[in-house]
């Protein structure tokens, strides 16, 4: 039971990030390699507000989310939008450069030591023989709410239809008067803010270390690719599947004798994704672009 609860929490964190990225990739067709650094900086800004100036959590969290939105907007305006028009692969390199600058900023401003956001005593709930804390429950519920809201916006509103139109055929959508650049900007900031929320959760539930950023980005995008590029639900399912595979891998005594050390958790999860993509390069649910 504990393994399932752990997978639910880790999967919700990954789904929160990968779902937004999946949508963003569908619309923009570009990767943001500075995502992990945005996650890290959001968590660290929240930590600084709580630990250094003793701000209460209900003020620090919205401020942290605003920092994530501002950083995402800056990333889009300076490192993505001017380049994606030239070639959709250029932002992959420019955001790598931006990630290095943010890494340097993290080291200069916050140092190398891991940081935890103080959140008081943890309230625990028991489910069978498993335990989950209040913050983890909030994350799971928040992810479910965000996913329901996203589904509703995508399938029941005019804005959602515009998003889907741009994803399916940007040129045709533009010719119908849809402002694809504005939609991309909105989606980029929203997905960055959701990822930032993940950073705050990591800071509260675990700790924020400068080494977290790069693996976080790679795992999130691996879920997006494994889910089928541009597919929201594919990314979400892949995120939960990866989290479950990671937990089962280290939590089970295989064949009654072998226990996999926790350090291999990430390596094996990524190896499974690589293997899966070699078998099915289009991912779980590849979205097709319409021809007109």
């Amino acid at each position, binding site marked *: 039971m504990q393994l399932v609860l752990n997978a639910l929490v880790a999967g919700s964190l990954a789904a929160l990030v990968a779902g937004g990225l999946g949508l963003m990739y569908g619309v923009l067709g570009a990767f943001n390699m500075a995502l992990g650094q945005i996650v890290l900086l959001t968590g660290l800004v929240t930590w600084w507000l709580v630990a250094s100036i003793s701000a209460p959590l209900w003020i620090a969290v919205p401020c942290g989310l605003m920092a994530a939105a501002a950083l995402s907007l800056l990333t889009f305006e300076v490192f993505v939008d001017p380049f994606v028009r*030239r070639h959709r692969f250029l932002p992959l*390199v420019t955001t790598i450069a931006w*990630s*290095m*600058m943010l890494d*340097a900023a993290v080291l*200069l401003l916050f140092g190398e030591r891991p940081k935890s956001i103080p959140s008081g005593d943890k309230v625990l709930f028991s489910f069978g023989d498993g335990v989950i804390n209040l913050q983890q429950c909030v994350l799971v519920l928040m992810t479910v709410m965000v996913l329901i809201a996203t589904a509703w916006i995508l399938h029941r509103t005019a804005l959602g239809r515009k998003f889907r139109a741009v994803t399916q055929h940007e040129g045709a959508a533009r010719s119908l008067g849809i402002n694809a650049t504005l939609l991309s900007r909105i989606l980029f900031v929203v997905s960055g803010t959701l990822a930032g929320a993940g950073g705050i959760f990591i800071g509260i539930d675990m700790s924020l270390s400068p080494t977290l950023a790069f693996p976080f980005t790679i795992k999130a995008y691996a879920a997006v690719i494994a889910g089928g590029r541009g597919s929201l639900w594919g990314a979400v399912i892949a995120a939960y599947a990866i989290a479950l595979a990671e937990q089962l891998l280290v939590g089970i005594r295989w064949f009654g004798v072998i226990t996999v050390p926790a350090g291999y958790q*990430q390596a094996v999860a*990524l190896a499974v994704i690589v293997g899966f993509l070699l078998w099915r390069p289009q991912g779980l649910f590849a979205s097709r672009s319409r021809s007109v």
Partner: protein
Amino acid sequence: MDLLWHTIVIIGVWLPMVLLHSCIFGRAKIFFFGPIAVWLLTAYATFLVLRMTGVYSLAILSGLIMASIASAFLAWTSLRLESDSFGIISLAFHLTALSIVLTWTSLTRGSLGIPQIPVAPFPSSTFGMAISTMSISVLWLGGMVSLMRSKFGRRLTALGEHPAAAAALGVRRSHAFFFIFFLFGLAALTSVVPFIQYLGILHPNEFSYEALVFLIMMVVAGRPGSIAGATASTVFVVVLREAIRLLPLTPSFVGPVRLLCFGVLLFAAVCWRRESLFPPTRSF
């Protein structure tokens, strides 16, 4: 004077990798972000065997086998996946290789690294090492100039510019990709062996994300696909990196300042090269 020889050693170590990566990235237009993973696997295969057996030829052979396997795997993956997906998956490959090295402590000693690498039949002085690495680099430089002017170079460029048209003219994508990746593996072997011998320690920090960005920066700054550009940018970037050491900064500041400088430099290089980095596909 020692700093000069040291800088030449580092240029000699990086140049073969930069030349090959520049051709993969610039000519074949393959979004390959796993070069440091090949470097890492080759280094560990070579020096673990050397430590266990003490036989240098056997160590080089195991390094070559590992480089070939890693390169073949990456070539196969590049054939299966879309360009940008391959970019992410090659980064995942790097992360996976690094995680394994850091976790398998009984074999690799994890983050402690492997000290006291047995001395190989290489010159032990910095000057001798500078001559050796530069000789290897000059050989690679000459070889790459010839290769890119040959039929293979033209085929690779054609595949990068218009894969469908190249295939229609009888160019086999799989052959070209496997061959260029195998050459990359060979370059990784010839650069990592003298490098680790020079350092005297095999440490995972040398194969980090920072090393990857350092390599990409040299490739992008020199214009991907350009042999002369790759050579000039390698010299420039290595000299800049070594010069940062001379700044009067505390050790805790040198790392972040270096990251900041390289980030700005990479961004400036992309801005400068934005027209030529991914040119539009030719139309007929």
